[in-house]
């Protein structure tokens, strides 16, 4: 049935910056990257069914991150218990903090940006914690953690460690020895930790990826598993009804993505 017209020379929109989530989109499916980030195409099909389950998972994730941010701003958890049905998560969150801490200093919901070539790469950390000369980026997950090799492959791991290494020392105004990314699940209590290691060739991998994006024809992915929970299915003629959310879906990577139309009321 043909295809939509792709203009590979269209270029990235003004003000565009790369992030773990849009890079992951490109790796999963170049077409999705094109539609979502170059065309900024809204396509309001359900990503999963039942929709309510997905929505609730997103809402809970959002609420949990909000509670954590408030807690790090100095608001006692006891003041928020009435706000949250997420008591189990909060208990595990406190346990994680006890295990990973104590910290010299923490920053909640903080974003760093770094240049790579002519492009800006942004990482938004749930929590940054300084412990001696080690900087730890903690990423809370409200679902089960994927297997370690899967996490290792995720763009989030690459992007966060790269940006952390590039920017944290400058931000703190002091040299650092170790740069660590910790995934901590508040649903299961699991923890996975990755340290920055020069042998991983972060810059080279990211440069290649950005290069690939610039020369991409933005083809549809061959791996149709990605289409099962992609909103563009009807546009790509890759199926009608969505499936249930797979376990490996990273819901916490999504909740912070703002909607296309901002909701703030202006006067």
């Amino acid at each position, binding site marked *: *049935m043909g295809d*939509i017209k792709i203009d590979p020379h269209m270029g990235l*929109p*003004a*003000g*565009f*910056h790369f992030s773990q989530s849009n890079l992951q989109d490109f790796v999963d499916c170049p077409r999705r990257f094109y539609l979502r980030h170059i*065309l*900024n*195409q*809204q*396509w*309001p*099909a*359900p990503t999963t069914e039942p*929709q*309510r389950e997905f929505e*609730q998972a997103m809402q809970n994730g959002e*609420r949990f991150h*909000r509670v954590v*941010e*408030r807690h790090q*701003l*100095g*608001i006692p958890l006891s*003041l*928020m218990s*009435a*706000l949250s049905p997420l008591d189990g998560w909060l208990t595990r969150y406190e346990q994680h903090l006890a295990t990973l801490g104590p910290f010299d200093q923490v920053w909640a919901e*903080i*974003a*760093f*940006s*770094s*240049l790579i070539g002519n492009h*800006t790469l*942004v990482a*938004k950390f749930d929590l940054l914690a300084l412990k001696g000369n080690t900087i730890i980026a903690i990423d809370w997950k409200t679902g089960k953690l994927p297997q370690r090799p899967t996490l290792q492959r995720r763009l989030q791991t690459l992007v966060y460690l790269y940006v952390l290494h*590039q*920017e944290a020392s*400058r*931000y703190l*105004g002091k040299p650092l020895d170790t740069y660590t990314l910790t995934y901590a699940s508040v649903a299961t209590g699991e923890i996975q930790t990755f340290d920055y290691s020069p042998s991983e060739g972060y810059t080279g991998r990211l440069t290649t990826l950005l290069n690939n994006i610039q020369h991409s024809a933005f083809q549809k992915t061959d791996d149709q598993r990605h289409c099962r929970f992609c*909103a563009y*299915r*009807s*546009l790509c*003629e890759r199926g*009608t*009804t*969505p499936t249930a959310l797979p376990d490996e879906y990273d819901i916490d990577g999504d909740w912070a993505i703002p*909607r*296309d*139309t*901002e*909701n*703030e*009321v*202006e*006067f």
Partner: protein
Amino acid sequence: MRFLEGPAGTGKTTTAITHLSHLLMNGERPQSILVLVPQRTLGRPYQLALNQQPNAAGVDVVTIGGLARRSLERFWPLIAEQAGYPRSEPTFLTIETAQYHMAQFIDTAIQTGRFDSVSVPRARLIAQTLDNLSKAAINNFSLAEVTERLTGAWSGHSSRHMVYETWQTTVEQFRAYCQEHNLLDFSIQIELFTQHILNDPQIAAHLRDTYQHLIADNIEENNPIALDFIHWLWPSLDSALLIYDSDAGYRIFLGAEPEAAYSLQTLCDEHEALTTSRVQSPALQNLEQAITNAFTNEPQAQSSLVQEAFTFTFHSFYPQMLDWVCEQVIDLVERQNVEPREIVLIAPFLNDSLRFSIMNTLENAGIPIISHRPSRAIREEPIARALLTLMQWVNPVEPSLPPAADMANALEQLIDGLDPIRARILTEIVYGSAGRRELGSFDDINPKMQSRITYICGERYEQLRQWLIDMRTTVSEIPPDHFLRSLFGDIASQVGFGLHRQMDSGTVAAQLIDSAFDFRTSLYPEGTDDWAPVWRDYRELVSEGLLAAFHPLSWQKEETNAVFIAPAYTYLMRNRPVEYQFWLDVGSQAWGERLEQPLTHPYVLRRDYPLHRVWTDEDEQQSNWATLYKLMVGLVRRCRKQIYLAIADLGEQGFEQRGPLLHVFQQILQQDEA
């Protein structure tokens, strides 16, 4: 601490962006920098610049409304109870959901007859009621003061006093309802921000520790609360750059206080004025001077260059004028190789017929054009109407077949290949064959008609019908927005259906669904097991025409290389100079006239307006005149090469036109001849 002033086009924002880069390069933490703008669009140059810079993520580019909302989201548990609200998460109302909640109180007031003396449609009563609430909040007026100000300024029939009192009772009821249900409209957000967030010692310390550097751009457009906030933050700042556009102040209708903004200069130890326009040609600079002379009635020698700044023709009829505009645009783009983005078409108000007629002609000539229509309701979009029509039939609460004309339109929109005539025939048949409440099957139609409608369209109709019938059995278990999402994704955008690969339709549907989602979550933030009331209320919302406005333009689209057609103030607030401007319908009275708004008043509801002072016809005339002057100068300052004046003797409605803008140009031309 620096105060930078100058007219548009003199490089103020560029200076501020350089200042921002220096701060970052000198190692200031991005999180310590606050860029305060009166409107999100005016923050765009900063965001673009920040994206070119390392270690710039975290600079806050916000409006005072955005800052208020974000602070409330963060610190709600600390202030909720003392502010008299429940400690559970609040619901932030959109304009649409605020209107919905307000409607019930306005209806009660209408029923008592206390609004009878103002003949304003219900929707505008609701909008103006909320507008007054917002004005109260940004000026820090109590509700009683709003009533007192409006009453004191009114010199007409005494029945208006009762209208203002009724307004106050109505909004007091609305406020109590919001408090009980933990709903925060814009005005409540602003009040809680000023009265609780900024007065809470812990939060105040956090905000003052966080923001060490302030850049406030277009302070002349910002409202009193934003200016108060600058005063509040001032003592703890390490640096500040305040930017004042010396001849703007277009948002006076939205509470801007240019004079109060200007007085902020007394806080600064450096004061710099930029005067050289980087935009205007000498001819346009002369035109600006000529306009100033015309307004001040000072006959001064006029440069011969003035006439080079603009070109005009008189047309007898409105359509001829539009043809002329299109011919000139085509000439500029095709023969003079002007980039389409360097052309803007400006009207005092942009109505649909004007927009359609120009857009059609230019699009047919292959010239890209985008329009901005801030006030069009999403329900006016054919795609949105089609989806809502089908929804009416599956609504679990009192489902009904929509009027046949609506259904025919929906089928035409949603079934690929079905033209309007076949859609009408198909609807007539399937409506007739199945009684009043059901959609008949294509299979039951006689073969001759089937063949006329075509089997392929019939098959698609059948597929859609079957999908809807299946949906009806489960639809009560889901909210309306989920239904719309499935209708779009599972069927309407699939191969063979009208929205397949229709990118613009995706945008319309997305906004419709987002607005349905906002509506539902404002009523049931925690969800519910019984969606029936939501379906009932949503139907009411749609039928009352309270659906949100449609915003067709994303940033990406707005920045494409296309001619831009917009209302004058929208263009001004985009703050994007162009080479060529076309001023449409120059004879119209609408240039320089204020909309009649009996329930509110942009000048009386300002801090600098004396309480109890009557607003006279002379005041009205003077303010209209001053507004027109600002508008003209603002436009001229945003033009690099030439202005085209499109004038028709008879306006769109066939009346002779002699509006104030035309009058000013006549004066300029007479002066030139003299």
